[in-house]
């Protein structure tokens, strides 16, 4: 009995056609399984990437929103701070109005204010009339750019907002309020 079984096993393993048939079938099954696994992995990867892309966009949108809000708050805070704002010097109180004379005086005595606002650069650029000359004591007020604070450190890109740049102007014997349009630009230290 044992011998007969042994013989059958020997016969099966020695038969070349039977062995090939079995291994071919197994190979095919393995191949099928491999293809299926690849397809399923690709499908899952695709779904994960798709959801990641959507959530990344959402994060970006939120970051932009916060950045915008922060920039707006910072620019408005600066424009309406006592060191910058027009106050009641030009009739009634005005929003986003910067006193040009005050700013120019501040520029000349900026040492105490280096770290006061927590920013690295504060520029004010006139939009109209469009002068491109840096403001100095000699050409004030016929100039277009005041670099109020310009620290030599890595800075983020500028956040900006439109402001009114007002000063007292003399025309013959008439002293009047002259307001021009400018942009207040602020950059912070880039810690990234």
């Amino acid at each position, binding site marked *: 009995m044992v011998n007969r079984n042994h013989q059958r096993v020997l016969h099966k393993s020695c038969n070349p056609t039977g062995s090939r048939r079995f291994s071919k079938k197994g190979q095919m099954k393995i191949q099928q399984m491999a*293809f299926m696994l690849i397809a399923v992995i690709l499908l899952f990867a*695709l779904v994960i*990437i798709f959801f990641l*892309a959507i959530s*990344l966009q959402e994060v970006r949108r939120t970051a932009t929103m916060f950045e915008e809000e922060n920039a707006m708050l910072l620019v408005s805070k600066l424009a309406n701070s006592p060191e910058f704002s027009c106050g009641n010097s030009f009739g009634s109180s005005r929003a986003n109005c910067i006193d040009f004379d005050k700013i120019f005086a501040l520029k000349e005595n900026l040492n105490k204010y280096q770290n006061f606002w927590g920013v690295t650069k504060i520029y004010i650029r006139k939009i*109209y009339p469009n002068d491109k000359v840096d403001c100095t004591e000699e050409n004030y007020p016929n100039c277009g750019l005041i670099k109020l604070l310009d620290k030599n450190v890595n800075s983020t890109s500028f956040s900006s907002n*439109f402001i009114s740049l*007002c000063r007292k102007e003399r025309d013959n014997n008439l002293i009047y309020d002259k307001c021009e349009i400018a942009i207040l630009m602020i950059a912070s230290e880039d810690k990234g």
Partner: protein
Amino acid sequence: MIKRKFNRKGQEEIVGFVIIIALVSVIVLVLLSFMLTKKEVAAVESYEVESFIQSLLQYTTECETYTEFLSFQKLIAYCDKEGVCLDDENSCDKLNFIAKEIIENSWDVNDESAVRGYEFKIFNEEGEMFVLNEGNKTANYKGNYQDFVRSGEDYKVSLTIYE
């Protein structure tokens, strides 16, 4: 023989399925990479439009009357009353010139910037009093308006920036 044929057919279907999935993955990945790495142009924010209108209304124009140099806000009302500046220039011509100059200097309208066009309007109590526009109108825009009362008349200034 028949069994082998069935197996082969099944195998071919699976290979086809894998190829389709791979192709779709590549296409979706390319689209996603385009979507995620697209160049970001500085967009216009609505608070900028609001601040711009505020600053524009405070702008001191060259239109002089017997008492003062008119602000843009006062020039609107002066133009509505068909007033003439001391230099004999029509106040509405001056309003048109100044508005155009200031807007063009503030909003750079071209295909490479975020701004594709703008529409600036002034309304009085009767309706549209002044319109200025340039560029193309698109579906993506930021706008704002500000109203004020001058000499008992209501005025509204609106600006829409198309991106």
